[in-house]
């Protein structure tokens, strides 16, 4: 086998594998659209926002399908989690890059990686037996939007911290050396040079963490209370799209099942939109550099 023919073979092979992966994503999209079509035709988009409650049934005429409180649940838990996790993650990355001695920074990074590897159900169990009773003592019932936000924040913190760390590490060293040569303080270097230079990477880190928060199921299911109702305060229970699917899928038939697939479709579209945003931000950086 000559080197050039090997090269061709490898190229073909890689193209085929890439095509398989790309095709998988398209198939998932197509499958979700096909499975949720009955919900779109039988129930109709308007009923997903106008019905009085979420009491789906196998027969569209008898159920009610208001998805808004569930959508709000997903948005509120994810947004809350990112509000908590983003500053913590980004500033811990700054600490790691600028302030920590290299050995401590190394140890710190390994610990964050370990944290990223803890299975979500473990966080959920901890939330259920420790965090929820704490919140219940503070303000009953306990399983609540607040519990969901805190558990999710804990889970996405390593994602933000590691990606932000990588973004800060990719800032050209000359910038920092230049700042040092100008005699700038560490504070000024951080706020005026490091963070603005790494901005696109930091935004990507936050968006990817947000994607993870939106998709998280098990831990959220265990601590959020899962009542379908617009929460009036942090202590009210909420239901997310993912936990709706997990709780009801086993029992759902026909139009109810289709409505759950519609939930899945909404999730996928939300994630797709966020990924497009992340991509736009990282593009902007490349153009600025060029």
């Amino acid at each position, binding site marked *: 086998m000559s080197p050039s023919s090997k090269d061709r073979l490898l190229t073909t092979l890689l193209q085929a594998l890439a095509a398989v992966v790309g095709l998988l994503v398209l198939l998932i999209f197509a499958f979700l659209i096909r499975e949720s079509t009955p919900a779109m035709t039988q129930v109709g988009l308007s009923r997903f926002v106008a019905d009085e409650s979420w009491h789906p049934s196998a027969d569209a005429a008898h159920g009610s399908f208001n998805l808004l409180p569930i959508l709000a649940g997903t948005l509120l838990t994810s947004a809350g989690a990112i509000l908590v996790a983003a500053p913590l993650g980004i500033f811990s990355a700054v600490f790691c890059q600028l302030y920590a001695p290299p050995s401590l920074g190394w140890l710190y990074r390994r610990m964050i990686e370990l944290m990223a590897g803890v299975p979500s159900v473990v966080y959920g169990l901890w939330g259920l037996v420790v965090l*929820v009773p704490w919140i219940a003592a503070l303000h*009953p019932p306990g399983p609540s939007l607040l519990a969901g936000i805190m558990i999710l924040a804990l889970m996405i913190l390593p994602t933000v911290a590691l990606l932000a760390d990588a973004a800060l590490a990719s800032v050209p060293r000359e910038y920092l050396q230049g700042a040092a040569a100008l005699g700038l303080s560490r504070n000024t270097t951080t706020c005026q040079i490091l963070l603005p230079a790494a901005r696109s990477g930091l935004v990507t880190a936050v968006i990817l963490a947000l994607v993870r928060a939106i998709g998280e199921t098990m831990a959220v299911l265990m601590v959020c209370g899962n*009542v379908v109702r617009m929460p009036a305060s942090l202590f009210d229970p909420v239901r997310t799209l993912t936990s709706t699917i997990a709780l009801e899928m086993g*029992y759902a038939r026909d139009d109810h099942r289709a409505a759950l697939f519609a939930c899945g479709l909404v999730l996928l579209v939300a994630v797709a939109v966020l990924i497009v945003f992340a991509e736009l931000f990282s593009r902007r950086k490349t153009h600025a550099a060029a």
Partner: protein
Amino acid sequence: MSQQLMKFHLLLAVLLLWLVAGCGLSGSGQSDSDAETTRITLTGSSTIAPLANEIGKRFEAQHPHVRVDVQTGGSSRGVADVRRGLASIGMVSRELAERESDLQNFTIARDGVCLIVHESNPIESLTDEQVVAIYSGQADNWQDVGGSDAAITVVNKAEGRSTLELFCSYFKLDSKTIQADVVIGDNEQGIKTVAGNPGSIGYVSIGSAEFNREHGVPIKLLPIAGIAPSQARVADGSFPLARPLNLVTRETPTGVVQQFIEFAQSAEVHDLVEELSFVPLQ
């Protein structure tokens, strides 16, 4: 160059493995259907599924040519699958409805549902009217039903669960009118939720509740209509909030399916029934 070659070989190996794994998966289905293996498929109630699994394992050990395949999806799915012929046996964890009288029904055990509160709650019993008041949101403080001054946290089951159906039909509640503070999936989650919140009330399987109570989980089982919840009361049929665990078939069962159902009803599996905190039939 040699490194590149190695990478290339590695890639090939991965691809081959993938293909082999793919073939293996699709192949295993074939090898089962040929030869003399008979497959019994059970679908339905997630309450019965663990029991059916254990019974199936024991049945397989006695009948090497039989495979017992258990899938969950709720009692309604059990009924639907049996009607459509997708499953040989359906698992239904409630009394069959009138419109389901076309099916053959075999009860293998009973399960009771009881109300639980936190151990520290001074309430010793609730009347049916008080339970209805709590679950429909008319009473939201334990003071309203003779307890101490604390907010009531109402723990309810997720829509579609047969425990919820049983609870609603006994107390004549409409699931849409229940004002829940927490919605849970399975019994364990319900027990952990109540154990973690002194003001809460929930309902779970008596078997699970007794098991957890004996192992020191701080919950209290409340009587219903004056009858204390216990396995014995469920077995003799005097406990009101109880349900049968049924196996259903479309036609009168024959062959291995008949053997399996007879086996599941026999005293040979009573230890399995009790192990899963259900109550065997007398």
